[in-house]
């Protein structure tokens, strides 16, 4: 299990709201969005899917992008990822 980092008030360059969308939309959205930003920029994914707590840090480990952290926003999770390359 990857290590989770909790963060607050991160400013993202691109956001995708995938609340209520089914698994594995979070991973497909990640692949799609990471191509849309420049290296150094941050993407934000808002989801209600708790499986993402495990999947997204792992995806970052595998692809080499930086997992900045997750914000637990009462009903939903906000994930922050920085494109590294």
């Amino acid at each position, binding site marked *: 299990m990857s290590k989770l980092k909790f963060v607050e008030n991160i400013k993202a360059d691109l956001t995708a*709201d*995938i*609340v*209520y*969308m*089914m*698994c*594995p*939309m979070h991973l*497909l959205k990640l692949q799609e969005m990471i191509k849309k930003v420049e290296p150094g920029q941050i993407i934000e994914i808002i989801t209600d899917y708790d499986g993402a707590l495990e999947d997204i840090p792992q995806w970052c480990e595998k692809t080499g992008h930086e997992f900045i952290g997750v914000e637990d926003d009462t*009903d939903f999770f906000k994930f922050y990822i920085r494109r590294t390359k």
Partner: protein
Amino acid sequence: MKAYFDHVATNPLDPRVLEAMMPYFKEEFGNPQSVYDLGIRAREAVEKARQQVASLINAKPSEIIFTSSGAESNNFALRGIALARQNEGRHVIVSKVEHHSILNSARFLEKSGFTVTFLPVDKYGMVDPDTVKKSITKETTLISIIHASSEVGTIQPIKEIVKIAKEHNIIVHTDAVASTGNIPVDVKDLGVDLLSMAAHQFYGPKGAGALYVREGLRIVPLIYGGIQEGGRRAGTENVPAIVGMGMAAELAKKELPERIDHVKRLRDRLVKETMARVENIYFTGHPEERLPGHASFCVEFIEGEAMLLMLAARGIYGASGSACSSKALKASPILLSMGIPAQLAQGSVVFSLGKDNTEEEVDYFINEFPQIIKRLREISPYQKGWEEAGSPACKPE
């Protein structure tokens, strides 16, 4: 002679639509989620259909979710939005003249702890925007009003209702199953957040529907599973039906003005001649704000079902109230909510014309229909009873 005047029930499949669908029943059978060429071609066909449907209602392709029917779209919209916004409030507003797929979804929400207001309508079956305004509470999250009623043809003042709703940050859905493809439907102009459609109402196949969901709107799925339809509606895509819906949408968009002129001309003559040739008959629904091919009447002293069977014996197909009310042999709740007395509502008949109907078919109808009514009235037990009781006090205003 045959005269199919029941286009609110369903429309025949346009041969051009069938032609577009055929390859996807046969050699192009791939699953759109598959990664190889067969799957890619199926996926491309689905995405083309999404563009065609989006274009018909002036939406973005990403705002179209394909479903199996208008009823599924209505269930999805009502439950999906009510549940997605339940932390903000648990009050939903619908009208009393909605399709059963809205009314019964609303009742499901009521059982699940939501409060639902069922709005009354005027004598034309129209919702007064003022009553919408008065029904809004701090808890209201969703308003769903039918765009055009298939039973009385009346087109609702959706734009005005949207204007009121937006002042209170309330989501608006409209059931546009009877209207899409039959009158211009523009989601930007109407201002709605969600809109339901069904392909078989505009010469597409049965088993294909769609829900327009405005970009950025959160909706809880009705069917859980995989990533089809952007992870919002699971189930392997019904590719032939979706392709058919797309083609039907493209044709409807292109041919809409001439289709409207044609059915309106036929309808107006059917109404005028019927009213002139039959006594004790009342036109229902709004005289102007109505679907162009739609004529609905209440005929005194006889039952709608009896008229339908005799008409069908002569090759003329119409409807009486909604399909469910007709089978259950009860007066249409829509007509009753318009203030039409129960006895008169029993004599409801609906004739809805389509692009392939002809002047000759209308001639045939206006010759046959009065004869049928005369014959049924001769054997009607109601007429005698009502005459004995004095002038029947059941006429609408």
